[in-house]
Every structure is written in structure tokens, then in C-alpha cells.
């Protein structure tokens, strides 16, 4: 369906808004004309319509005003105005539309010293078209190749000049394979909070997450999978080898990470919440305190959704705290993962960013490697990226780091409730 630009503006005029800007839509294809021939003119917002029309008149331009039609705004009032006059001033928008072939008087108005301050800029009025949905089914955009995992390609980290050097990142999880050849030199601190269990990871999950933060590459295949290979790992074992823990262990792990002056805490853990359930005030207070102490807590949004069955589960605990940076999961075609939780609850519970979270290759227990899926994987990838950003700007506060991650994110054509600011993305 073809809609002329002026019609779009007219529709907006019928609404009570006062600060609308003319819409700009992309063409659907190259066959459709882009411009109407008319001009849009940006006016000084401080100038009255009377001044504008009076100054225009001196340049032989007869301008009508929307106020002239205030009582009779039928569908074709704009057409009438543009037939009867040379153009029309949209009083509330401080924008005018000028008819075709009147470029010369407009140029004069913008150039003359007495009028230039009121006639600021012109641009060609566009046709706007209904946006058509993509007809092409999305195919896989990224694949693991001989040099790196799809995840590292997707977050654009391979060209980064930063490696996370000197940045302390805590991974609170099931521990780490302390003897893993890819990781042992990265471990700067470790502590267990699980009674009767050593930091040594007998589950594999913690080793996987740690590898995503600070693993470098496969020793023989030279296949890169870690985001910040020079980051300093602080491993807090807060979950047992069965992958289970308690709030009290995790809070103790956060406290320890703050004692160790970690700038980033990666938590691929959590518990499901019900729709409408409020976030934990205890964790929110702790996360705020961590931010004050320049430590950003990054946590997995959760995997309870089954989107293929139209089930979207709310972001889990504790990622649902407003002061914890919540990470959703993306597939290699950059669609939201079937399992990834969404921002449903109005009181907290938003997704802040999304990262690669399906078939992610990293280290595993017993000197191993394997692919895993989950918001668990997306989270340490974002934590590693945060380490690169922190290295690029060592004085950046945790709040600034939060903002940088969000600003640098690559926007995706997906709901913000699913992917927050978009795909975590390296701009350094």
C-alpha cells in the first residue's frame, strides 16, 4: 500500500502529540519512488506562525497554517491547503511543507540574514510505504570455523586489541577444572563455599563458563573460544558438583569477589520465578552495593521458556533484580533461543542484553571440551566482553560499564523484552 508522506503527517496531526517528527520509513524495494517533490522545512521552534508566514510572504511564498483548518480537518485538508497556498505550516511541529518547484524562494529565506534564523533546514519529502515482513526465512548466520567459535565471531571480538589483561572476573559456579591446560594459568583466586567439596569442578558447567570468559584457544587446533583470554579468573564454587546451591552460598561468593576487588561477577545460575513474582530485595541491595564498589554482576536470565509452544517464562532469580545485568540467549541465526526467558514481570525482571547461547564450544571437566547451550553460556561471554571494555577504560565505573555494554550492543529486530539492548558486541 502506498501512502504519501503528507498523509502520514496529517494522521499525526489528528493526534494530541506536540513533538512528533515526520516519520521515515525504508522503501520496500527499488521500484517505488522515494521523494514526492515537495520540501519539508524545519522552522525555529521559538518563531510564531505569524512571523513565519509574514517572512515567507516577503519572498513570495504564501503559507497556510494548520490553525486555519482547525475546525475542518477532514481527510483532504492538506491537499486543499497545498492547492490554495504554496505550503502549510504545522504549528505544533514547527515544520512546514512547501510545494514543488519553490526551491529558490526557500533558499533565499534560509540565506537572508533577517530570516535564516527562522527557516533552518529543508529536506525532500519522502513517500512512506507499509513495511513488509521479510519473506526470506532466516538461515544460520554464524558457524564455528577453523579460527573461532560462532559466538566469538558474532560478538565481533576477534579484531579487538584488548584481551581483558589485568581485569579480575569472578565466576561463581560449580568450580573449575583447576588442572585444565587452557585455564590453570588464568586462575588467580579460588574458594569453595560448598561444604565438603573442593573447587575442583566435577560437574563441568563451571569449567565451561570459565573457559568462555578466559580460555584462549584449543592447544592444538588453535581454535579460539574464550572472550578475554588475559583476564584474571577468581573462581567461587557456590554450586555443588550436582549443579545445585543456595542463596546463602552465592551471597557469600559475591562478598568474596568484592573482597578480591573483582570488577565483574559472572553468575550462570538461578532459580525460576512465577509470573508477577517480585525480585529479591536482598539481592537487589547486594547488587547495588556491588555497583557502588565498582563491581558489575552479570547473571543468566534463565531457560524456562518453550517459545516453540508459546511459553515464555519470566526472567529468573536473581537476574530479575534491576541492578543485576540479565543476559538472554541467541541462536547462531541471531534469533532468540527457544528456552530463553523473557522480560514479563513489570516489577524488575527485564532482559538487559543477549549473547550467543546455543551450541557453544568451551572447556569441560577432565581436561575436556564440549558444546553446551543455555543462558549460562551467554552470560560468561558477556562477562568476558565486559572485561575487554574495562581494560579499554580501566577507570570506568561499574555503572559506566553497564552503560557501555548496552550502548555497544548491536540492535536486533527482536523484542527488547527478549534481548534487551540487543546482541553483546565489541566496538573496540
Amino acid at each position, binding site marked *: 500500500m502506498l501512502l504519501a508522506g503528507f498523509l502520514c503527517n496529517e494522521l499525526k496531526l489528528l493526534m494530541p502529540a506536540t513533538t512528533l517528527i515526520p516519520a521515515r520509513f525504508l522503501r520496500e524495494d527499488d521500484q517505488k519512488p522515494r521523494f514526492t517533490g515537495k520540501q519539508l522545512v524545519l522552522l525555529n521552534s521559538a518563531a510564531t506562525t505569524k512571523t513565519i508566514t509574514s517572512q515567507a510572504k516577503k519572498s513570495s511564498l504564501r503559507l497556510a497554517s494548520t490553525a486555519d483548518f482547525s475546525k475542518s480537518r477532514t481527510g483532504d485538508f492538506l491537499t486543499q491547503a497545498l492547492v490554495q497556498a504554496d505550503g502549510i505550516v504545522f504549528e505544533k511541529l514547527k515544520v512546514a511543507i512547501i510545494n514543488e518547484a519553490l526551491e529558490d524562494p526557500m533558499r533565499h529565506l534560509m540565506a537572508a540574514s533577517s530570516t535564516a534564523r527562522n527557516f533552518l533546514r529543508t529536506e525532500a519529502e519522502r513517500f512512506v510505504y507499509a513495511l513488509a515482513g521479510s519473506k526470506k526465512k532466516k538461515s544460520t548466520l554464524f558457524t564455528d570455523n577453523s579460527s573461532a567459535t560462532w559466538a566469538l565471531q558474532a560478538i565481533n571480538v576477534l579484531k579487538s586489541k584488548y584481551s581483558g589483561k589485568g581485569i579480575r572476573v569472578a565466576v561463581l*559456579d*560449580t568450580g573449575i577444572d583447576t588442572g585444565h591446560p587452557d585455564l590453570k594459568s588464568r586462575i588467580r583466586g579460588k574458594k569453595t563455599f560448598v561444604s565438603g567439596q573442593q573447587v575442583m569442578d566435577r*560437574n563441568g*558447567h563451571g569449567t*565451561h563458563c570459565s573457559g568462555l570468559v578466559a580460555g584462549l584457544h584449543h592447544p592444538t587446533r588453535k581454535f579460539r573460544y574464550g572472550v578475554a583470554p588475559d583476564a584474571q579468573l577468581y573462581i567461587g564454587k*557456590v*554450586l555443588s558438583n550436582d*549443579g*545445585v*546451591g*543456595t*542463596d*546463602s*552460598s*552465592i*551471597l*557469600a561468593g*559475591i*562478598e568474596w569477589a*568484592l*573482597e578480591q576487588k573483582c570488577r565483574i561477577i559472572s553468575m*550462570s*545460575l*538461578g*532459580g525460576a520465578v512465577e509470573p508477577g513474582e517480585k525480585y*529479591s*530485595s*536482598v539481592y537487589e*541491595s*547486594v547488587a547495588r*552495593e*556491588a555497583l557502588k*564498589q565498582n563491581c558489575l554482576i552479570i547473571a*543468566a536470565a*534463565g*531457560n524456562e521458556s518453550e517459545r516453540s509452544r508459546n511459553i515464555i517464562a519470566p526472567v*529468573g*532469580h536473581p537476574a530479575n533484580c534491576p541492578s543485576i545485568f540479565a543476559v538472554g540467549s541467541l541462536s547462531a541465526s541471531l534469533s532468540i*533461543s527457544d*528456552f530463553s526467558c523473557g522480560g514479563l514481570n513489570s516489577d524488575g525482571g527485564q532482559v538487559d542484553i543477549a549473547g550467543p547461547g546455543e551450541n557453544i564450544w568451551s572447556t569441560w571437566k577432565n581436561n575436556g571440551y564440549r558444546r*553446551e*547451550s*543455555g*543462558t*549460562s*553460556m551467554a*552470560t560468561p561471554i558477556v562477562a568476558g566482553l565486559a572485561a575487554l571494555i574495562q581494560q579499554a577504560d580501566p577507570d570506568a565505573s561499574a555503572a559506566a560499564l553497564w552503560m557501555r555494554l548496552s550502548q555497544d550492543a548491536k540492535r536486533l529486530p527482536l523484542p527488547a523484552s527478549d534481548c534487551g539492548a540487543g546482541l553483546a558486541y565489541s566496538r573496540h
Partner: protein
Amino acid sequence: MKFIAVVTDKDKIDQVVKSLEALGCTIEKVLRLTGVITGDAGPRKIEELNLPGILSVEPDRKISIRKKRPN
């Protein structure tokens, strides 16, 4: 029941610990950087622990890894 709590003023956390102990709670961890107290309330309800100086108190929940479970 096990609990987690956060205090309103970290500098006065020891006073809150004493109050909880006086109520009969067993204190397990006192985390001074974040102002957190964890412990066991025994037979008491969580709401009973809402003493002066406590900002919030909640049950100590079970937490697990966020790896996707195989279908």
C-alpha cells in the same frame, strides 16, 4: 528455616546479629561488605525476623546452574 537478610546500615550489622541470636536464630555468615546475614531461624517464620535494622529478609532458596536441560 534457613534465611538470608540484608541490613539497613552495614556499620551496625553486629547489633542486628545480636538481635537475631537473642530471638533464637543460629547465625551462619556475616558478610560485612554487602551487609548480609545468613542463618537458620529454626521454627520461626521468616516474618518474625523483620527486626529493626533489617532491610529485608527472605528464605534461603535453592539455586542451580542455567545450562539448558536436554529435552
